[in-house]
């Protein structure tokens, strides 16, 4: 049950048709795993913590560098050199003491993925490479977990919901495993882009937890900030 303090904190969210006390209770009981505490992972963690998602796991083994700060908005100059998940834990606990944060200094791997993902309701994509996305996808399919996808490069980003109620998966978008010949960690990225994409991912997360309307399952939303264009295309489940 929500405490009086929680009811006061979430008052403006409780007013929303489709959320209310029942939806807020669902958020409190929900658990999400954020894979990666970078450009996508930071706003995902902030907004879902603020929304009152009860348990948030964050896995990342990287340390904060100064070149992260234009887009990884959990961190400050004082965090440079620290493990990202340590800095994230402090910041998020300060934002919302009513939820549980589980920081993990590690990388998602073949060895730990099934065990970790099994502990959460949904998996949120904050990672920066194709191999981890295939791993998230395959484990989510195996364990019947929802995968909230997001990716960014330069001025362009994508958002979708995979493996939701029999909908398409990441392998329907990219059937063949790819090792892109353009290194994404060396590509530029507009700082606002991962913020926007992560907020769309966070919105889909809240919608699914609260059973709100249609999700982006079966649809890929593509954002091109350079020309201010939002496009959607339909994605059909191809195979398991």
């Amino acid at each position, binding site marked *: 049950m929500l405490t009086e303090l929680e009811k006061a904190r979430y008052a403006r969210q409780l007013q929303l048709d489709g959320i209310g006390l029942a939806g807020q209770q669902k958020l409190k009981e929900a658990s999400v795993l954020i894979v990666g505490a970078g450009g996508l992972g930071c706003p995902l963690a902030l907004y879902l913590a603020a929304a009152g998602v009860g348990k948030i796991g964050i896995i990342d083994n990287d340390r904060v560098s100064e070149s992260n700060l234009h887009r990884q908005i959990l961190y400050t100059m004082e965090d440079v050199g620290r493990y990202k998940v340590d800095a994230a834990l402090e910041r998020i606990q300060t934002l919302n003491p009513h939820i549980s944060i589980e920081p993990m200094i590690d990388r998602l791997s073949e060895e730990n993925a099934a065990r970790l993902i099994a502990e959460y309701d949904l998996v949120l994509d904050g990672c920066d490479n194709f191999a981890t*996305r295939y791993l998230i996808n395959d484990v989510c399919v195996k364990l019947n977990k929802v995968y909230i996808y997001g990716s960014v490069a330069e001025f362009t980003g994508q958002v979708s919901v995979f493996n939701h109620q029999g909908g398409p998966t990441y392998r329907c978008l990219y059937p063949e495993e790819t090792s892109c010949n353009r290194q994404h960690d060396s590509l530029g990225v507009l700082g606002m882009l991962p913020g926007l994409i992560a907020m769309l991912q966070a919105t889909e997360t809240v919608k699914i937890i609260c059973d709100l309307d249609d999700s982006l399952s079966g649809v890929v939303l593509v954002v091109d900030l350079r020309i201010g264009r939002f496009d959607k295309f339909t994605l059909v489940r191809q195979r398991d």
Partner: protein
Amino acid sequence: MQVTVKLFASFRNDRFSKQDFEFEEGTTIEQVLNFFQIPLGEVGVTMINGRHRQMHDTLSENDVIGIFPLIGGG
């Protein structure tokens, strides 16, 4: 047949954003990519009329084809 080609993100650089072209009946997506000298290894998603399609799928009169690069950062 006339086909509208929409290029996204970095594929627009030194090319175009949206333009109509004439192609022969039965032209595949892969042939369109080759025509515009878009490296297949950099292609992430191709769609026809708003639906995700594969390289071997063929185009029809008045189709709109969209071509996206791989996007994998975070």
